[in-house]
């Protein structure tokens, strides 16, 4: 994607709204985007959901992915590039060679203040080291993920786990690779609230609540009236 030092390629044409006649858009993606657009008074609101969907399909917000979204949304790909590069969860860098197109595992290690006070920076370094040479993982240092109560923590494909130790890393990665539940014992989903006055009786530790801690990515579709709940991300792996 473009950068500070990018020069326009004068051999290319201007990037206007893609021509539907020449832009191939996978049916599944088209349907997802169209369903999203229908939810809002202004179709432009679907930009982020559409980019989430394109990233899911392409592995990242590649120029091709942006063109496809642009084609369905009837906007220029540049306007989507502007959006995609603004948000941390939208990948605008190509995956390393050898990476699978779909289903790379996103590991976000929180390195913000509360987690750092509990060793998050070292954890992040160790995590990166552990995935060296495995293009199946995207490991990123993230800002506060909203789970400082389990510091230091990480989000693995949206599943929050913590407090993590360096020693947890191999198991965590193995679980992700195998498509198993990630470190079940350390999942946020099972934690009871800290406030001792909250619960009037001793409730059991949570069994991971509704269906499974799966992708909110499909949440949009589930939200639609009558919309069937699609298979979670696990199925795509």
């Amino acid at each position, binding site marked *: *994607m*473009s*950068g*500070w*030092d*990018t*020069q*326009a*390629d*004068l051999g*290319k*044409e*201007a*990037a*206007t709204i893609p021509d539907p006649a020449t832009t191939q858009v996978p049916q599944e993606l088209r349907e997802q985007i169209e369903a999203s657009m229908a939810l809002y008074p202004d179709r432009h609101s679907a930009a982020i959901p559409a980019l989430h969907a394109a990233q899911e399909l392409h592995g990242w917000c590649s*120029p091709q992915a*942006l063109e496809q979204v642009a084609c369905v949304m009837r*906007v*220029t*790909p*540049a*306007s989507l*590039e*502007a959006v995609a*590069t*603004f948000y941390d969860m939208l990948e605008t860098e190509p995956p390393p060679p050898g990476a699978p197109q779909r289903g790379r595992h996103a590991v976000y290690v929180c390195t913000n203040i509360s987690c750092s006070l509990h060793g998050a920076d070292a954890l992040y370094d160790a995590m990166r080291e552990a995935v060296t040479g495995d293009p199946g993982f995207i490991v990123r240092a993230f800002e506060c993920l909203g789970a400082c109560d389990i510091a230091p923590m990480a989000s693995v494909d949206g599943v929050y786990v913590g407090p993590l130790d360096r020693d947890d890393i191999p198991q965590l990665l193995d679980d992700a690779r195998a498509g198993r539940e990630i470190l079940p014992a350390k999942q946020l989903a099972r934690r009871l609230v800290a406030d001792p006055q909250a619960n009037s009786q001793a409730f059991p530790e949570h069994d991971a609540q509704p269906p499974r801690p799966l992708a909110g990515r499909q949440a949009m579709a589930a939200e639609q009236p009558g919309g069937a709940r699609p298979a979670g991300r696990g199925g795509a792996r």
Partner: protein
Amino acid sequence: MPRPQQRTISFTIDGREVQAPENTMLVDAAKHGDVEIPVFCYEPKLGQPVGACRMCLVEIEGIPKLQTGCSTAVKDGMVVHTETERVKTAQRAVVEFLLVNHPLDCPVCDKGGECPLQDITFGWGPGISRFIEPKRHFVKPLALSPRIAIDRERCILCYRCVRFSQDVAEDDQLVLAERGAETFVSTFDGHPYDAPFSGNIIELCPVGALTSRPYRFAARPWDIEDAGSVCTLCPAQCNVHLTVRDERVLRVQVRDNADVDDGWLCDRGRFAYPALNGRPRITRPLLRDGGQLREVSWERALSEAAAALGRAGEQTGAIAGGPVTNEEGLLLSRLLREGLSSPHVDSRAAGTLPLDLHRALGDPALQATVSDLEFAHAALVVACDPITDATILDLRLRKGVRRHGLTIVQATAEELRVRGEELAAQLSGAGEEVVVLWHERLTAGPEGIASAQALLAMAQRLGLAGIDGAGLLEVPSAANGRGLREAGVLPNAGPGLSEAPPPAGPSREGRGADAIAAGLAEGELSAVILMEADPFLRRSRREAWERALGRATTVIAYAANLNDDLHAYADVIFPAQAYAEKEGTLVHPDGRIQRLRPAVAQPGQTRAQWLSLVQLASALGLDLGVRSALEASEQLFDVVAFYAGLTLEEIGGKGVRWQERDAAGAYPIEQPA
């Protein structure tokens, strides 16, 4: 849409009471008291203020925080301070922040000397920077498009350029990428920013981040001159500033005329002119001699031309092209009518229209202005493609839609004729102020008259004559099409759309352009003058004109550049002036008379066209009574009844719509009492 009415209020700025229109932004209101509030991101042409750069912070009594002057509307009784220590500290802080990453390469920057950042740093900056960290460095400059270079180091992220692309041109090609201090101006995946109005971002940029590639290092602000002019590359007639050095136009910039161009230029107008410098110009008269065009003296060319015209006499036709001025058109038609007794002059591409229709379509009570397009409830665009026909109007329509809820309805000539009632209903649904934007081609062809009548019927149906801000707006084919018609360059009308003067008469009709071609081809006419007119431009006419010129005995042309057709057919060529060299007047499609002034000397032996016409006439024994460009204009104002009393001073830099002057009453149409 009713235009906002503004009342005047008074407020206090830096201890002085100042009057200003209510609700103008403080930075503009301050100017009424000669107070300058520095700005970077504020540019009202781009739409609502965004308050991003924070340069314009001011103190307002009763509001604890400093406020941005660019976005705060002035209210009666407001007390504003721009020189308190608090304000100065904030201004110095913002300049210091901006310079954190701005390179200090002014000596080698194209913007140096005309750079707002430079000026504001001197005027409001801290004098020193306490930033000692290394500045960021990037490869520079880089091509952003074939015409624009980008230097991202210098960018201060005011995002004017991006807002232009998104909110004015609406091409959405130029965007900001990334976030925070990493933000940069980008296009998609290395594509060039290539759009009809892209060049405007060069002028919008308040630093040297966006520069014109053709102009880079061509000149420094202190060794250039600046001349106001009017672009004649299309009928939109945008007002321009020409940057001149050593008698060459190096750059074309906007000359903000809200009633014409709204402060924008299209890329053709901006970049084509300097390119003209580079093209080989015809700088001396050319004469066909032994089958070859050879350079000859003016005397020789004039006498040969006069002799040939003398021989052809009333069998001569003449066509005036787009950039011909009113004065040149008037003199040309007089040469034909009075010098050669020929009624065959024309300036229309769409064929001849009965005079009463011409008059009805030009009825001053029915004429809309360009600004009306913006504020109307609806615009009916008939047989017209603004982006190619009068490029800048595309932006005006977009602005109308975006800012004032203009409804646009498009129709073809046929739809206008057949579905008039339906269209009218659709338009009235949007509101009563309707502007019908139509192109001259609507009146072409076998249905031309019917279409013109349908247009008038539409105006009648919508009651446009009685409504302020509503009316018809014609885009003529030729850049000065309206002016030429009003000057009498029509086969069936004299100056001021008067009855065609002699030799035309009931028994002898003047030929229009097509009939001139036919006449030449059939040997009924033998000579033709093509004044800055290229009949081959329209492909459908090509064959007819090849036959015509092939058969003609004499082809006399006024042209700036030589092309294959002239090579093949012209017998005499007079070097034509470029618009930057001319002196005279034009008429904008909405009736605004605009003035051309010479900005550069004409190259070689090029001669003013009015002068060579006078000389040609004189060689034919006709005294046109004109000894200077000024006298030519005065003659024009005399003979066009509804221009009566006009002076060049009155036209001034911004032009004047003749419909708004008293003399408009002399327009040859019955006005209902």
